[in-house]
């Protein structure tokens, strides 16, 4: 199963990178969302997979009775999902505002910070 997921993770990254390389802001946003899922799946896969047994200790016991799923990657991913969502929401609003202010969703036309005809540095002291 890990091997199949490894290829799926590769597909996640390939699609995300392809989207990030487009100059359209909204596609880059999709890429961000997908790359976040790709990273989560990667961590999940590296922690090895166990079918259908959540890391929960049954009532009355001090330790789980059978082989359970690795809890550590799950804890890391839980944090990552939330942070990834915050980032996504922030970027979404940033894109929206950039579109409103600059009337552009293409990074080629968003050159306020780095104008194309920025002046040459003065040759003096």
């Amino acid at each position: 199963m890990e091997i199949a997921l490894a290829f799926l993770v590769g597909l996640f990254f390939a699609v995300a990178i392809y989207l990030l390389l487009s100059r359209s802001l909204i596609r880059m946003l999709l890429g961000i969302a997908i790359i976040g899922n790709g990273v989560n799946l990667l961590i999940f896969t590296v922690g090895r997979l166990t079918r259908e047994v959540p890391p929960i200790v049954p009532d009355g016991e001090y330790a789980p009775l059978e082989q359970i799923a690795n809890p550590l990657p799950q804890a890391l991913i839980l944090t990552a999902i939330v942070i990834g969502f915050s980032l996504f929401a922030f970027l979404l609003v940033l894109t929206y505002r950039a579109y409103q202010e600059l009337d552009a969703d293409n990074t080629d036309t968003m050159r306020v910070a780095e104008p194309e005809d920025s002046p040459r540095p003065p040759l003096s002291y």
Partner: protein
Amino acid sequence: MSDLPNHYALLLIALAPFITALLAPWVNRFANGVSGWILATVPAAIFLVLATYIGPIADGGTVSFTMSWVESQYFHFPINLSFFVDGLSLIFALLISGIGTFIVTYSGGYLNGHRHQGRFLSFILMFMGSMLGLVLADNIITLFVFWELTSITSFLLIGFNHNKEASRRAAIQALVVTGGGGLLLLFGLLMIFAVSGHSELSTLMMDQNVLRDHPAYLLVLLLVLGGAFTKSAQVPFHFWLPNAMEAPTPVSAYLHSATMVKAGVYLIARMSPVLNDTIYWNTILPIFGGITLLTGAIMALRQTDMKQMLAYTTLGSLGMLVMLLGLSEKVAILAALLFLVAHAFYKGALFMVVGAIDHESGTRDLTEVSGLRAKLPFTFIAAVLAAISMAGFPISLGYFAKEEIYLLFGPENVWSMALVLVALIGNGLMMAVGLAIAIKPFFGKMLETPKSPHEAPLSMYWGPIILGVLGLAAGFYITDVGQIFFAPAATAVYAKLVETHLKLHFDALLIALSVATWVVGGLAFYKLESIRSFLRRVATVWRWGPDQGFDQFMFGLIRLADRVTRLLHHGRLELYLILVFVCLAGALFTPLIMQDALPKLPAFPNLHFYEWSIIAIAAIGLIAVIAAKTRLVAIVSLGIQGFSVAVIFLLFGAPDLGFTQLMVETLSVVILALVMTRLHLDQRDARVLEEAVRDGAIAIVCGFGFVAVLLAVLSVELDTSLSDLFVATSVPIAHGRNIVNVILVDYRALDTLGEITVVMTAGIAILALIGIRLGGPKRGIGAPKKAPKSGAPKRTTPRSKGARA
């Protein structure tokens, strides 16, 4: 030297000027007008403390102070804050503090009422402290730190009139040249440590042949000379020195007499015992020194600006000193030291005289001032006293310096004979300049000057007069002065005991050479006008020099920086990202290939049907995001891959993740759908086919990179010790049955706190983004200034035609 008592006074001497520098602006504010006199008490006190060492050092002793500065057990380089005083340091330190006293009072008068007088006094005192630390330093790192401090503080002083471009240029030039030399020196000093194992100059001096006999000797010598020649303005690094005349006159008087430019000479003298008297030393130094001497002396005659004339004679004098030290002979060293002190006295005095003339008459052009004798009597006396020593008339200190130089003249040694002739010509020409400055402005008919001239205040003429008197008095008592000051100093440089027997010689050859010097000088003075016009004609033809080269160099640097910036920082986001992902691919594959760890293609996995289906659904969702023709399809596809991930979490024992992922994906899709409907975006991918292929290739390579790394990782055993610990202790010590939750809120509680902070910050940022409207805030920080005239205030952010805000 650790057995000697620590003289904390030395530490205080090096630090006191810096402490005073901090107070100087306040002193100046509350004691405006007399602040120079008040602050001058500090260098005067330093002078007096140093004067108490004269006796012990004349008897052959040294004074030292050591304090550990940086200690490290990993790094066997003893960095100490250590100082020591021997004959050489003492002469320099006395000159620095003594002339410094006059300079501080002089600055008080010269810049009286200037807006930034306090700042100026502060800079001067910092510079003084740097110089004192430099000449007293024992540890080579201490030496280097103070060496660099002199570069930095002189930068501040030269660029004091920072609203003038010429000043800024001169300051940057001095900093680049002397700072560049400082780097060479640092390298040289570290080489000295590596070769000799000595970090203290005082112990290095005991081990005299350790450097000379080492194969790296030439490298060490060149590096040290690189530092010294840039600091002491030897040709071809001389150009910064005349330009530094942009500084206010007290700075020139100080930098050019006793300090800055003498630092290089000090370094050469200090290193003489361990570096001198080799074929390289005895060739390089006299040649560079001789060229500098002639260049300086001849260029001085070309100028009419008296400050510039003095600046070029300073060059000449530095050349003379380097040349003399380069002979590695006892007489030459003694001559160099005599000349050094004589020069410090008369050059300091003459600069202050020129500054007084400039200050009181409004011009310092030699051809524009005349007949000021009656108006500035005290300044005139100072000028004459200094000029006597500069011209080397009998019984002045300058005379004895010259006499010692001419003692080197002997028919048996052609090399030193040639150098004495060079010295003779240089002396003669510099004498002409001295005479010109002492005579031309004061005699003759009064000329109309920009200001009506009157005598300068006491603070501005007492210094030059005392220096002038000292120049004569030292010559009068030359035998005693020689024993007390010059013998210990020469001993330190020559590294063998030197006895001085300075007195008036009545040797026919010496008298002949002296007379020859005066004849050269007198002729040059008499023919000054025609020499000057001749040199000016030459200058119109021969334009190129290192000064222009410096501009080319600096502008070239700026252009190069501009080009590199434009190359790397071109402003096209997708190219930045391509660079990032290409590097990512490299980072993924390189270690695998280097360690030959590329995984083999695994066997086809044997999965349940539902597992295959969910993987397939995720893949379809991903492909559909890319292939989607409309926004809505893309959003729905995004949802598909997100929900697939949630299902994968559910299937493999992670229900918490599954639920969280479901909620987050639902929210994402809803918000995205809401926002997208309000935007009128281009539906198609803007990429042309070539770009799509390029990006696709990068994406696929990166994708396979992740697969390969992941397979490589999966092929090794997982270290589950941390997970096992959590599983085993979850119930017993954290009292929680859901192990994932226990990890989040117990074991990684701080991480979770950080996570909450991130979410909150993102929320605030989103609120702020929505709240900000074009034109910035109406009030408070960033609010537009009130419109100067009627009409709407200009917007600073470009607002394009289609904004629907």
